[in-house]
């Protein structure tokens, strides 16, 4: 920056542009790391990775509404299916810690394959996968 009388001249060089670009990239990288912690989210898991027909599947999840604050007393809708086969549907409510569970027993005639569990609330959705094998 140079002052010429009443005039102020700002000179932008390629170095300034490069510094600004690096700053933007760093800010975006930091945001992408922080966003999962700041925004709403759901963690959904099963008690095992693989089951046999007739065995019990336990689904467990935690929901946060942002800044890691638990989503309490919220309805959670659940659907478990393998391809076109629907094996479980449920509706539960989160406790004070944003925690919920839903368990069911697979029918003896459940087909082998990969199954997906979907849980959804007003703020976030979770997905978990498991395998059924005889």
């Amino acid at each position, binding site marked *: 920056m140079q002052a010429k009388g009443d005039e102020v001249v700002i000179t932008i060089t390629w170095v300034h542009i490069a510094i600004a670009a690096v700053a933007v990239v760093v800010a975006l990288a930091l945001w992408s790391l922080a966003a999962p912690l700041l925004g709403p989210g759901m963690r959904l898991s099963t008690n095992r990775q693989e089951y046999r027909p007739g065995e*019990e599947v336990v689904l467990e999840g935690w929901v946060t509404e942002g800044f890691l604050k638990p989503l309490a007393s919220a309805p959670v*809708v659940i*659907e478990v299916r393998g391809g076109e086969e629907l094996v479980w*549907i449920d509706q539960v409510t989160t406790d004070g810690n944003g925690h919920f569970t839903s368990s*069911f027993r697979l029918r003896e005639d459940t087909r082998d394959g990969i199954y*997906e569990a979907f849980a*959804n*609330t007003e703020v976030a959705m979770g997905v978990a996968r498991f395998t059924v094998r005889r």
Partner: protein
Amino acid sequence: MRIRGRAILISSIGLLLLAAATIMRTSANGYKFQIVSVVLQTEDGLPSTSFARGHIVVVNVTLRNIMAYTYEAEPYMVVVRMTYGTTMYGFGAFKGSLLAGEEANAAPGIYIPTGAPTGSYKIKVFVWSNWPRFGGEALADPYELTFTVTP
């Protein structure tokens, strides 16, 4: 200046009324719908709490939109689950939409497999906006009742 002040006052009252209407839109627990009744029926339409294997349980559901006001009909999906213990032996579903204060009635049927165990079963009715995998949410408290399956 006086006219401008009056306009601001009227606008503020309007905004307050809009906020109140928004709060009144949903029930105390936040749900937009209420399951009014669920009656189990035979294929002939007769109420029953006992069904034989190989027959169909008709689940007659009456649903009401309990919102005070809606701009347009609110879509819903009713899902019915039939379980023995914690095993799901069947389900049924239907979709529709209702204006505020309106009621709907539908009766999906669930087939009881011939190989299904006999004993006490549960029917649970859910009202969702869609399937969870498509972002569906709960729209009502579930409704549960029991019935017996005979040989």
